[in-house]
Structures are given as C-alpha cells and as structure tokens.
C-alpha cells in the first residue's frame, strides 16, 4: 500500500506527482491542484507532501509518511478554513513560515486547501512568497478550478488537474477502506456523484441518508406557491438543525475552554474585562455556523440538481445511469408530469439559488424563489 492509494481513479495526476518526487528536474516550487469537489484535492496534496518527506518509502508506513498524512508532520503545514474566507492574518503567517528551512532536512510543504476562499487582497499577500520561495519550500494550493484563484497566483503555479472518479472506483474504495456493503457503497457513490467524502458520510451515517431522502421528496410536495414557501421554510429549518448538530456541541466546549483558560467561573456572569474575548469567540463561531448552514444548503441543492438531472435523463430516454436509485418512482412520476424544457428551467433555478447563497444573499429568500420556480407551471 503506497501513499497514493487513497487517491482514487486519478492515474494521470499520480504519475505527474510521483515523477516530481522521484526526479529533481521534474519538481517545482508551487503546485495548483484543481478538480471538482470530492475528487480528492486535499488527499492528493497530503499524499504528495507525504511522498516528498520520504521518497523511498514504497509502502507508506514510515514515521515521516504517516505523520505527514495525519497532518502532524513538523514540516507540513495545512491551512484550511471553516469560515467563509481565509483571513489575511492567516495568510501572513504562512509568508513568514515559508522562509524557514525544513526541520527534518527534506521539504517544507505548505498546503492551502480552499485557495479559492481568499479575497484578492489576501491572495496578493502570498504572491511574492509563492513566486520565490527558499529552495526547500514547496507550496501546494487546492481549488475547484484554475479560474477560482487570481491569475497572478495561477501563473506562478504548476497545474495538476483531477477528474471526477468513476462511481465504481469510489464504491470499491468504500468497500476496501470502510468495509461498507458493496450495494450500499455503489448507491452512496452514485448519490454523492463520486464525491468521496460525501459518499463516505452517506454510507456511514443513516441520518445523512434520511436527510437526503427528505430533500429529494420535496419536489413532489410542491403543488402551488403556498406549498413552495412552506417547503422552503422546512428545507432551511432542517438545514439549520443539521448544521447545528455539527457546531453546537463544539461551540459550547470551546466557550467552556476559553472561560477556564481565562480563569472565569463557569455559569456565573462573565466579568466585564473578559467580555471582549468571549464576544470575539462567539463572532468566530457565528461565522462558522453560517458557513456550515451554507454548506448544508448547498449540498441539499446539489441533491435537488441530481434529482432533476435524473428526471431529464428519463425524459430524454437516455441510457445514462440514474443517480438516485432510491427515488426512482418519484423521478419517473415527475418525468411524466413535466416537459424536458421545464426540467432544464428548474435546474437553472436551483443553480441561481446556489450562486446567490454563496454570494451572501439571504438563504431563506433565495430558497423560496427557487421552490417557487420548481412548482408545476403550464
């Protein structure tokens, strides 16, 4: 088993990256790994970092490789964000860090996951550092597509593109690594549209499957404008619940930890001198909660898109595989009740809502406009 095994269905990318590890002349100081969500950009970046730390480790079991993969290697820094954007201070820290020599003598690897989540000013801070790093520093940026990063960043990096892995390959990975039942694994891989992380989550978590089923049941319930508004309300409420599950417990733990560190009583009133710090933490948590909500909603909308895609497949009589096998009856019913043009318009409406929510529009209102557009129209 080598470090590249976790990178499913990407032989070309693996060839380029492992060549760079082997031959110094094939190596370069900055890489931009692009590919659709779930294709394994961050996995590729970590595997590359691991391989760089120990090129002779063929089976990926050495200490160096393992710590690099786990994200605990001293010379491998991973910057990811749980907020909507990477802050400029985080980026500035990286600039300083990139000038230090690696402590273990091989490479200092700086991985920026979500390089697309940087505003222009933040990207500009990194420009000089990415252009001319010290000899033993290598930057690895990840983004969905090259267009998502500034052109000045793009031109300083070597591009590695990942493709959508075949669903069967993802299912095989789930069976091999998590011991999932093969039929369920394939269903989840299809439903997740080959997004490895999502497929794993669906396979491991029955609640996630339930939530997805609920989302897919929505189109059939919308019969008029009133229903559409109610459905939008339900969708956002459930997404809020779902995102809270992920954040609420952690928020409380963080606050307790902060109060303990500051020496304040738990449960008592917070002394005025410490309120600023607590408020700062709460604002941070609020930003994180917003991102979590947007992510859950976006996932729900991608699921809806896959539903209408299936409807369209049936309507056009194509021989493509349906992504939502469990929802097949609903898909066929919807396909019979509407025209292909309408399906395309509905997909368009879902797409508009996605872009708007990502751009900061009010989620409930955008979803309402979307569900209104999904109602049957003649």
């Amino acid at each position, binding site marked *: 088993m080598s470090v590249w095994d976790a990178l499913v269905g990407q032989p070309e990318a693996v060839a380029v990256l492992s060549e760079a590890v082997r031959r110094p002349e094939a190596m370069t100081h900055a890489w931009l790994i692009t590919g659709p969500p779930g294709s394994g950009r961050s996995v590729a970046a970590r595997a590359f970092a691991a391989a760089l730390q120990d090129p002779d480790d063929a089976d990926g079991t050495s200490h160096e490789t393992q710590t690099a993969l786990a994200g605990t290697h001293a010379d491998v820094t991973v910057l990811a964000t749980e907020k909507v954007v990477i802050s400029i201070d985080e980026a500035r820290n990286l600039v300083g860090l990139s000038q230090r020599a690696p402590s273990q003598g091989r490479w200092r690897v700086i991985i920026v996951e979500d390089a697309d989540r940087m505003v222009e000013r933040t990207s500009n801070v990194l420009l000089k550092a990415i252009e001319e790093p010290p000899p033993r520093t290598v930057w690895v940026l990840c983004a969905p597509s090259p267009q998502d990063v500034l052109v000045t960043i793009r031109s300083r990096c070597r591009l590695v593109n990942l493709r959508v892995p075949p669903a069967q390959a993802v299912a095989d990975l789930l069976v091999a690594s998590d011991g999932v039942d093969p039929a369920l694994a394939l269903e989840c891989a299809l439903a997740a549209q080959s997004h490895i992380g999502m497929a794993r989550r669906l396979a491991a978590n029955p609640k996630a499957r339930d939530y997805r089923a609920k989302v897919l049941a929505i189109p059939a319930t919308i019969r*008029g*404008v*009133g*229903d*559409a*508004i*109610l459905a939008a*309300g339900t969708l956002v409420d459930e997404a809020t619940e779902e995102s809270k599950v992920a954040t609420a417990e952690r928020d409380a733990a963080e606050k307790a930890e902060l109060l303990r560190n500051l020496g304040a009583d738990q449960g008592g009133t917070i002394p005025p001198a410490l309120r600023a710090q607590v408020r700062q933490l709460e604002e941070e948590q609020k930003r994180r909660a917003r991102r979590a909500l947007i992510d859950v909603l976006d996932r729900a909308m991608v699921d809806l898109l896959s539903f209408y895609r299936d409807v369209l497949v049936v309507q056009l009589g194509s021989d493509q595989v349906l992504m939502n096998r469990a929802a097949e009856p609903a898909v066929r019913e919807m396909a019979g009740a509407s025209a292909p043009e309408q399906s395309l318009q509905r997909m368009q409406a879902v797409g508009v809502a996605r872009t*708007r929510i990502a*751009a*900061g*529009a*009010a989620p*409930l*209102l*955008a979803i*309402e*406009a979307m569900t*209104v*557009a999904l*109602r049957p129209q003649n």
Partner: protein
Amino acid sequence: MVLVRGQETVLADRAVARIATLVREHGGDYEQTVLEAATYERGQLETIASPSLFGEHRHIVVNGLEAMSDAFLDDALAYVGTAGPEVTDVTLVLRHEKGTRGKKLLDAVAKASYPVVTCEAIKRDADKVAFAAAEFRTAGRKATNTAVQALVEALGSDLRELASACQQLIADTSSTITPDVVQRYYGGRVEATGFRVADTAIAGHSAEAVTLLRHALETGVDPVPLVAALAVKLRTLAKVAAMRGRGGASASDLGLAPWQVDRARRELSGWTPEGLARAITAVADADAEVKGEGRDAEFAVERAVLRVAGARGH
C-alpha cells in the same frame, strides 16, 4: 431622593432638570455631582453625601443605573437603609432606563416611599399627539389639531426630535400654529420604515410605495432591510394562502401570531398565486442585486417595489 425610571429619555431629562431647578429655587449654595453607576467605585457616594464644612446642599445625580457596578448597588442599598427624612441637605437623583439590573435597589427605594417618576416609552401615535399638544399648551400657544397631527406624522419616530420641533415652532412663529406652518417647516418629510413601504407595495399602490421608498432611502434606511421587509410580508401572505388551501394547518404551526394571520387574510384580497410567485421572485432578484449582483442597490429595491405592487391582481 428621587428615582427616575423609564426609557423615554426626553421625559427623564426633563424630570432631572426640573429637580435641579427646584433645588436651585430652594435657595442657598449647592454643589452638584454627576456620577455614572457603571464606573462607580466603592465609597464615592458616602464621601459626597457626607456633610460638608460649609453646609452647602449636595445635589447628586447618578446616571445609568441599568449598568450599575456591584459596588454601587451595595453602597446605594446601605444609603437607602440609613438615610431617613431627617436628611434635608442632600438630594439624590437615580436614573434607571430599563432592565432588571439592580432590582433590589429599585424595590428598596420604592418601599421606603421615596418619589418614583416613571417615564415609559411613548409608542402610540395618539400619545405622541397628546405630548405635542401639551408642549404647545405649556408654552401658552394655540395649535390646531390637524397641525399637531401633521407634525407627528412628519417627525413621530423620535420623541426627542418631536420635542425640539415643537420648541422650534414655538420660538419661530408668533400666531396660532396651523397645518400651513407645519407644512412650511417640516413639509415633505415623511417617516418611512421598511414595513410601511412593504405594506403600501403589497396593497398595490405603486406611486405611493415608491414615494415612501424614496423618503426611506433619503432618510438613511439601508436597502437590505427594505428588501427583507418585503420578503417577510410576502412570506406571511404565501403561508396564510397555503393555510387557507389546506384548512388543517393552524396559525401556530406556521409560526405566526393570530393577528398576523388576520391581517394577512385581509391583505390577500386581490392577490393570486401567480402574482405572489412573481412578487417573491422579484424580491429574491432584488436581494441578490442588493448584495452585490447588481450595481445600484437603490434602483434594485425600487424596481422590486414596483414589481411587487404590479404583481397584485395578476
């Protein structure tokens, strides 16, 4: 000792000023001290209130009791407990705006039967009219009812502004205050909130809605809450329409208060599902434009208002 509580700061200011005048009229020297209860340090009250060498009267005003420090609470409670009617050379004025902080002290003051002046926030228009009318009456001026009404409509949202407008009219004019006078000074000003704009747009009055909207924008209302108000109104309408269709769902299932439902039922007349769909889409478009998809946020809101007003009856 006097306790002044309530959120209407104009009235509270006046009460405090009135007490100061009374102290002055009482004659003799006096020394005024103003304290902030939030930054109060232990012992201050006792130091100031203790008899002075020259026997002047001490007039102490303590502001912001709603954020009082613990030290103040302790000291003030002790003071209320010890000082009795025999203390005649100290006046202590306490100002508490809102909230329950220091409730113990407030209760103690009231129980010791010191005067408590309550200045509740004036919210209803009728009360504001009465307030403005009283302003003119106190100044010995005549004002017609319609003039007072017009003044409240123009400046009603902030009582302080209303009070100063009354003072200005009293100072600048000499005869009876008529609607013409109000029109000359405050004509063209209308209090416009997001919800008033939304209500008018939903009633289908395009011209009036746009006029209100421009007033709102001119007086500094941000486009974002204007769009949000439209969205909230339309959401309620659509929910109530859905409820009517189903019959089963009750107001509480939808998260609405009964009065909201009644009101939405009335407003729903003239709306079709198709019209609602159009209006909601238009508002969602405007929201995206206000948040950066479009170049001119004000134009986006105006178009949304026109579209919503136009969608009624379709």
